């Protein structure tokens, strides 16, 4: 009945120290993208005026997709109200510039706070919803927000015709013209993507990811699942609002139609195309979008079709996204990489 069990290692201290911890894999991509951004800015964006506009489109889509990255791709929360968060940033700029005496730079935190608050309220109301039902409610919320800015709230938002005449941001004696704004935008994208790639591997990031796999497991691990869900929603919304801030400052006007729910669908595909195993995938996706935008007449041409079709094919065939493919070709033997790349 009894077995003799010899305590192999009673004392944890007896274990010989080995190489501890994990390698930091976040630095290499960050350096790569830093170099790429610098080259892009000085070698390409400054060359022609309309390159600056493309670079700004890239910035906006990058920030939008990076905003969606944490709640969606790490947390599995399908929040589709991102057009509203983007609008929060843009309208914060326009309204503060044209209707108040508040320094324009404060539009950045105010827009972020408004977006985060919206996401928090929406997150609280939808706390028991997942999957399709969450997608439906957030899509409707985004639609309602669009309705509000384009008609009901016209007194404040200027309705469909939007708000024009936004002055240039003047900060510490530097006037942020188009060149400076694009530079600031690229820096913001780089910082956010880098921070997220570190967040993803930190304890809060792991908490979000474990909660996606199993809420009971997250709860018994002591993870405050409700707060962590709300925090990730608010964080994503705030990042998304930043995209709106930059676009409004760049164009010096805003139109309600730029904030229709349709934009969310495109942004949703960016990390898929770029690869979801790292936030840099969202940046790559945004780059591809802008490239396609250039390569074909985007609005009328087959651009979005190619884009959506590619996303669909990736979802069906290889849920790891493009980075997944590269990783596979790079080291096919390491099958675990594929696992890591899975959603």
């Amino acid at each position, binding site marked *: 009945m009894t077995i003799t069990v010899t305590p192999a290692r009673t004392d944890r201290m007896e274990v010989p120290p080995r190489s501890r911890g994990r390698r930091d894999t976040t630095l290499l991509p960050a350096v790569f993208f830093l170099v790429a951004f610098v080259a892009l800015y000085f070698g390409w964006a400054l060359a022609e005026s309309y390159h600056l506009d493309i670079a700004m489109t890239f910035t906006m889509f990058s920030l939008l997709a990076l905003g969606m990255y944490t709640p969606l791709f790490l947390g599995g929360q399908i929040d589709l109200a991102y057009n509203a968060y983007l609008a929060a940033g843009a309208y914060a700029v326009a309204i503060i510039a044209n209707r108040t005496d508040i320094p324009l730079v404060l539009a950045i935190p105010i827009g972020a706070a408004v977006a985060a608050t919206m996401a928090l309220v929406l997150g609280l109301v939808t706390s028991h919803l997942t999957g399709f039902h969450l997608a*439906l409610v957030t899509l409707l919320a985004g639609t309602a927000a669009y309705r509000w800015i384009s008609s009901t709230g016209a007194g404040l938002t200027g309705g469909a015709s939007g708000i024009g005449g936004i002055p240039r941001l003047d900060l510490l004696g530097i006037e942020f013209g188009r060149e400076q704004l694009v530079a600031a935008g690229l820096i913001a994208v780089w910082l956010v993507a880098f921070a997220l790639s570190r967040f993803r591997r930190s304890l809060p990031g792991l908490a979000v990811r474990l909660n996606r796999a199993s809420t009971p497991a997250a709860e018994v691990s002591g993870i405050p699942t409700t707060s962590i869900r709300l925090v990730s929603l608010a964080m994503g919304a705030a990042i998304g609002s930043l995209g709106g801030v930059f676009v409004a400052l760049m164009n010096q006007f805003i139109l309600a139609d730029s904030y229709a729910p349709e934009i969310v669908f495109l942004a949703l595909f960016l990390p898929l195309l770029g690869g979801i195993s790292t936030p840099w995938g969202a940046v790559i996706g945004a780059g591809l979008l802008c490239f396609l935008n250039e390569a074909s007449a985007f609005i009328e041409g087959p651009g979005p079709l190619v884009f959506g079709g590619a996303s669909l094919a990736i979802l069906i065939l290889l849920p790891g996204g493009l980075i997944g493919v590269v990783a596979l070709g790079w080291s096919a033997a390491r099958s675990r990489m594929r696992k890591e790349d899975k959603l």
Partner: protein
Amino acid sequence: MAIEWIDAVTALRVGIVYALLALAYFLFARTTDTINFAVGGYAMAAAMLYATLTGGGTSPLVAFVVAVGLGAVLGGMTETFVIRPIASKGRDEFVVVLAITALLFVIQQLAGFVFGRRAIIGEPLTAGRVELAGYEVSFQNLLTIAVGFVAAVVVGLWIGRGRSGRMMRAIGDNEQAGLTLGIPVRRVRLIAASVGGLLAGLAGALTAPQAGNSFHSGVSLSIVGFIALVIGGMGSAYAPLIGGVLLSFLELGTSLIFGSTSRDYFLLAAVLLVFIARPEGLFSLKVRTT
């Protein structure tokens, strides 16, 4: 504020269309455990095809049949090329939702590419109108109500009594149980998906002469159909019918009271209310919660 009875006829017609979309959702949800967000896309594609064909001189009846057929084909293709391959890779609801969303996007862009990006209106199936209690009512309106209603009832009967309908209920979302019972699960699913697509196509073809449809009507059709399903629930095959008509009358009521721009707010409020107060739907729907 008095509700003119003609408004009620319009609301009934709109509600029947919602009901067809909800029923399409119902068929997909019951057999493939997927809220097929693309059904609005099928309806839009069918409407665009119908409008394009009748605009080019094809007889409305032929155009109607072809458009409805397009819906059925799209439904079947969705099951074969999207839902089944993803399910076979180990089903992750998150991937399914993204894929279905992408599919809707693709259908819309494809429609914009093929049929053009402007809104188009189709010829009515039958011209002419009758005078009823002081109002002119077009035949098309009455036909929409009649055809939609009959289709909903026939599908309801099929699910309740028909052979493959019964098998469909037996499978539910449990493929293994179905296989053990010797049911050809794949075939039943394909049939259900095609019928779902057909119903969505019907909804589209019936609305094509009423209102302008453009390539991005798909999302809003998807949304109202889903809401009708949420309100009605999935308790029985007739729940989507009730949900669709109810939603339409509620819409009519709010637009009379608050004006037509209130629609988006109303839809959001209605869905939140149902989810909070009665998550299983008014007629018992299983809402997926954590």
